[in-house]
């Protein structure tokens, strides 16, 4: 039995427990236990069940969605930096559901040329559209009333404080993990290349449409919840691969688990590090993600 999958799964309840235990208000262990069981001080109960638990689950859902999308895009585009450069970048720079969907759809539409699917074209289209949308966002920022600029800025950096109810995102996460998992054996074959996968019986075009749709849905749901949180989708699948997990049947669900746990932890840190002020969690994921990414690049052959 390998150790890494067990650790990753165990990290899920551990990270959620930590996220509920810590916050700007210091609750003692006894008070915390009471509140969790629905007893004692009403304020403590409200903090635990009304504020921290939804926030922890929002962080988990957001991180899980991003990591799952990253893992899917990395195999689809056969590019280790897919999440940073491709759909992620374009989708993350737009403000709303419509916007993110349009961004992802546009990447897909522009990428499907006459000769069919081409990973490089997807990536370059993503990069091009991302800088275009980036300029649009810059325009919106410079024209916005100054009272709204900080909120926009936090959103652009990635911020879970306005996340609200995480239940929709959790449902989307579960659905995306299930859908991606159902395609995992075919994705294992797809890494041999499109022609080889076809000759082994994979309906490649349909698989790509499902996986890309799944990645898009996951990204859109995550962006709606937490804004543009970087590096989770990029780094988490690589961490798992480095620890020897390559089969998609394990890689995809574990990416969701690890991404969710890490973002729940990072968000706990964001809430408590400078309490009572909150940092945008995207700043923290970047602060952790950049060194990890550089380390991974060093390992890249």
């Amino acid at each position, binding site marked *: 039995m390998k150790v890494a999958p067990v650790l990753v799964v165990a990290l899920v309840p551990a990270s959620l427990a930590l996220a509920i235990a810590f916050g700007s208000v210091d609750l003692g262990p006894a008070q915390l236990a009471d509140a969790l069981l629905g007893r004692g001080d009403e304020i403590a109960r409200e903090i635990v069940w009304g504020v921290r638990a939804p926030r922890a689950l929002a962080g988990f859902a957001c991180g899980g969605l991003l990591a799952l999308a990253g893992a899917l895009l990395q195999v689809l585009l056969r590019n280790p930096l897919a999440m940073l450069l491709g759909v992620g970048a374009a989708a993350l720079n737009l403000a709303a559901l419509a916007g993110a969907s349009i961004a992802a759809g546009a990447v897909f539409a522009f990428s499907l040329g006459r000769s069919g699917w081409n990973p490089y074209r997807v990536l370059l289209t993503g990069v091009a559209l991302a800088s275009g949308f980036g300029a649009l966002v810059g325009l919106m920022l410079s024209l916005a009333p100054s009272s709204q600029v900080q909120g926009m800025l936090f959103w652009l950096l990635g911020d879970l404080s306005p996340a609200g109810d995480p239940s929709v995102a959790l449902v989307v996460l579960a659905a995306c993990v299930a859908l991606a*998992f159902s395609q*995992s*054996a*075919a994705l*294992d*074959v797809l*890494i*041999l*290349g499109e*022609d*080889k996968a*076809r*000759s*082994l*019986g*994979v*309906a490649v075009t349909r698989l790509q449409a499902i996986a890309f749709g799944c990645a898009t849905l996951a990204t859109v749901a995550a962006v709606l919840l937490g804004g543009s949180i970087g590096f989770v989708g990029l780094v988490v699948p690589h961490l798992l*691969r480095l620890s020897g997990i*390559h089969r998609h*049947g394990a890689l995809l669900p574990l990416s969701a688990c690890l991404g969710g746990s890490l973002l729940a932890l990072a968000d706990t840190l964001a809430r408590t590090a400078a309490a009572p002020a909150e940092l945008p969690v995207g700043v923290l994921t970047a602060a952790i993600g950049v060194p990890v990414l550089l380390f991974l690049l060093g390992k890249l052959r």
Partner: protein
Amino acid sequence: MLEAAGLGVSAGGRELVRALDLSLAPGAFWSLLGRNGSGKTSLILALGGLRAPQSGTIALDGIALAAHRRGELARRIAVLLQDEEPDFWGSVLDYVMLGRYPRSRSAWSRDEEGAAAARHWLAELDLADRAAQGYRTLSGGERQRARIAQVLLQDADILLLDEPLQHLDLRHQVQVMRTLSGCASGGKTVLAALHEPGHAARHCGFAVLLYDAGRASLGRSSDMLTQANLEALYQCRLEAAGTGSFLPS
């Protein structure tokens, strides 16, 4: 039975095969010979259902290739591609086991039957002691044999092999030809693109010769692989090889 009628294949705007009628019956071992760029690969991709032909029809047991589902086709036709992704994350056995995808894709149970068959083919191709080794640590020739093992594990009735002998040393060239010959004797249909007429003459009962400008001729190896035909095919003078030309006995 894989049958092509009036088959036309082009690539890069060049017509490579014109109006080819080809019928691959069970138990036959065909060689496919032609100069570089003569269309061997394009023909194999078309016959394998991986590229739509420009014209004509290809039928498997009387039903058009395109009408078969991918999964079903993969249980009937296996294709060894000339080029493939050189990198793979796992062991040689992990790699070869992907050939079981058309038959066993359960994520929950271990495919013991497939693993046993994979080890059989690895042993057949002298890779038994490499099974646990990382695929990316193999040499070019060992990698080629692992790819052939994956195709054989697919256990299809029809094997289409694009340059199965590339990167192989002399001994393993003959070993692979014998293995393929054994598959044909066992009732499979085998078509292999080759660059060495000697191998074709020794092991293959039939030959397809692809000339320039879409012309092709096919028939029994004994009729096709004559000096005159091969000189026309490769467009150079040939002479019988004397001393210094060896093949494993």
